[in-house]
C-alpha cells in the first residue's frame, strides 16, 4: 500500500467519515485468477481503513502478468461467468467481507457472448452473495452504445443486492457513419437521461449511498455541490416501493 502522507491523511479522514474503497486493479474477470500480490495490498488497505463499502468492476485488466490500467470488457459467456464468480469468491474470502461488483461501460461486444450483461451481473451477485454497485452512467453509456434497454437492465437487478450507486458525466463522440459512441469520461455534469435513470433506480432500489464521479476536468466545488444537491432532491422527491430492510 505504501506509506508517507497519503495513507495518514486517509486515516484522519476515516476518523470522521465512512469510506468507500473502490478498486480498479483486481481484474475480477481474469482467466488467470487474481494477482496475490495486489490482493495483499487491497487486504492491507481494508484492514487499515475499515471501509464501509468495498467495490471492484465487472471487467478485466490483466493477462499473463501484464496489467493494462483499464477496465476491459468480458465476453459474456458461461466460462467468463464461472471465472468471475471464482475470483469474487476468492476476494470475499480473503477480505472476510461482502464486496460490491460494478457494471462497466463498454465500447465493444464479442460475437460469442451469450448472456445479457444485466443477467450476468445479477447471476454473479446471486452465486457469490456479493452486492452490486450500479453505475447508472455506465448503464446508460453501454445501453446506448449497444442498443440495450436501460430500464430492463435495472429491472433485472435485485433491489436487495444494490449496495451503492454511481453517477457521472460522459462525452458523445460522433462516428463517421452518422451514429455516435458514448464515452464514460467523468468529465462533465451528469446527463439529463442519467438523472432520469437515477429517479427510476431510486424508485426500484430505495435509498442507496450515491457517489458522483468527476475526476477529469474537475470543476469548481460549487458545481459539484449543485450536482450532489440535485441527487439529494431526486431522493427527496421520489417514493420507493422496495423494503430496504431486507438488504444485507
Amino acid at each position, binding site marked *: 500500500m505504501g*506509506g508517507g502522507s497519503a495513507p495518514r491523511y486517509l486515516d484522519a479522514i476515516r476518523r470522521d467519515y465512512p469510506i468507500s474503497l473502490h478498486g480498479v486493479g483486481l481484474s475480477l474477470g481474469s482467466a488467470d485468477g487474481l494477482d496475490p500480490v495486489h490482493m495483499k495490498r487491497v487486504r492491507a488497505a481494508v484492514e487499515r481503513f475499515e471501509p464501509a463499502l468495498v467495490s471492484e468492476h465487472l471487467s478485466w485488466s490483466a493477462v499473463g502478468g501484464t*496489467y493494462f490500467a483499464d477496465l476491459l470488457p468480458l465476453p459474456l459467456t458461461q466460462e467468463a461467468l464461472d471465472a468471475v464468480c471464482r475470483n469474487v469468491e476468492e476476494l470475499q474470502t480473503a477480505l472476510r467481507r461482502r464486496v460490491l461488483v460494478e457494471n462497466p461501460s463498454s465500447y465493444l461486444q464479442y460475437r460469442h457472448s451469450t448472456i445479457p450483461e444485466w443477467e450476468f451481473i445479477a447471476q454473479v451477485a446471486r452465486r457469490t452473495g456479493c452486492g452490486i454497485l450500479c453505475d447508472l452512467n455506465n448503464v446508460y453509456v453501454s445501453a446506448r452504445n449497444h442498443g440495450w434497454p436501460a430500464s430492463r437492465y435495472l429491472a433485472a437487478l435485485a433491489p436487495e443486492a444494490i449496495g451503492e450507486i454511481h453517477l457521472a458525466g460522459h462525452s458523445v463522440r460522433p462516428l463517421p457513419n452518422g451514429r455516435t459512441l458514448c464515452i464514460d469520461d467523468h468529465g462533465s455534469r451528469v446527463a439529463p437521461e442519467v438523472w432520469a435513470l437515477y429517479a427510476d433506480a431510486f424508485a426500484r432500489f430505495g435509498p442507496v449511498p450515491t457517489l458522483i464521479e468527476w475526476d477529469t476536468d474537475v470543476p469548481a466545488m460549487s458545481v459539484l455541490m449543485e450536482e450532489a444537491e440535485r441527487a439529494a432532491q431526486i431522493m427527496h422527491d421520489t417514493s420507493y416501493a422496495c423494503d430496504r430492510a431486507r438488504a444485507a
Partner: protein
Amino acid sequence: MHAIGPELLEVQRAMRESLVEHRDDNLRAHIVADGLDPAERLDVYRNTFASVLTNALRLSYPAVARLVGDDFFEGAARIFIAGEPPRSACLDDYGAAFPAFLDDFGPARSLAYLPDVARLEWAVNRALHAEDATSLNGEQLIRLADSDGALMRFVPHPSISLIRSNYPVDAVWRAVLDQDDAALHAIDLRSGPVWLLVERIETGINVQRVSEAPWRLTVALCSGQPLHGALGEQADFEPAALLADHIAKGRFVDVRTDPLRT
C-alpha cells in the same frame, strides 16, 4: 450471437496483442462490428491504455516532461509503454525502467543529463511512496555498543536512494519544477559531478547534496556492507559524525549482527 467461441484466456491474450502491439488479427473476428470497424472500437481501449500510462509516467517524471515538452514526452512514453507495459496493478511502481530507456533513446541524446534527471525523479517517487518504517530505537542503539563491527550491518529506511550524476541534476530538477528560468539558465552543466541522498522526511522529500566520501560510505552501509568493511574503504574522512547524523535523522531502521548469508 454464437454459442461457441474462443476461450476467455485466448480472448484476453488477443486483447494484449491489440493493446500493446497494435495487432488485431486474433481479436477482430470475435468483435461485433455494429456500424463501426472493430479496429476503431479497439482504438478506444488503445487510447485509454496509452493515455493512462502516459499520465502515470508524467506524474512520476514531471521535470523530464517539462524539459522535453508534451509532444516529445508523449512520443517517448508511448514507445516505452509498448516495450515495458506494467507488470503490476500498482501504478506507483510503474516506470522504474524509464531512465534506462532514456539512456538509449536516440532523440533524447542531445540532452545528456536527461536520464539522470529521470533517475532523481524516480528516487523522489520511491521516497514518496515507500512503506513507513520505524527508525532505530534507543534500546537497539545501546546494543550497538556491544556489537561486533565486523558483523554489524544497517538496514536503511526504504525511502532512501543514493544517486551520482555527472551533471547538477538536482539544480536542474528544482529549477524546472519551480519554473524558474533564471535559475535554469544559470546552471553550469560542466560544474562537475554531484552525489545525492534522497529521502522522505516529516515535511516532504529531502534531496540533499553530499560530498563524495560520505556518499560512498552511505552507499556501502545502505547496501548492507558490515560496518568495519565499509569503514575500511574510507581514507581521508572521519565517519563518526556522518554515522551519528544518519542515526539521528532516522535513516536506519534496523541493525543486524547475524552472519551474512551468502
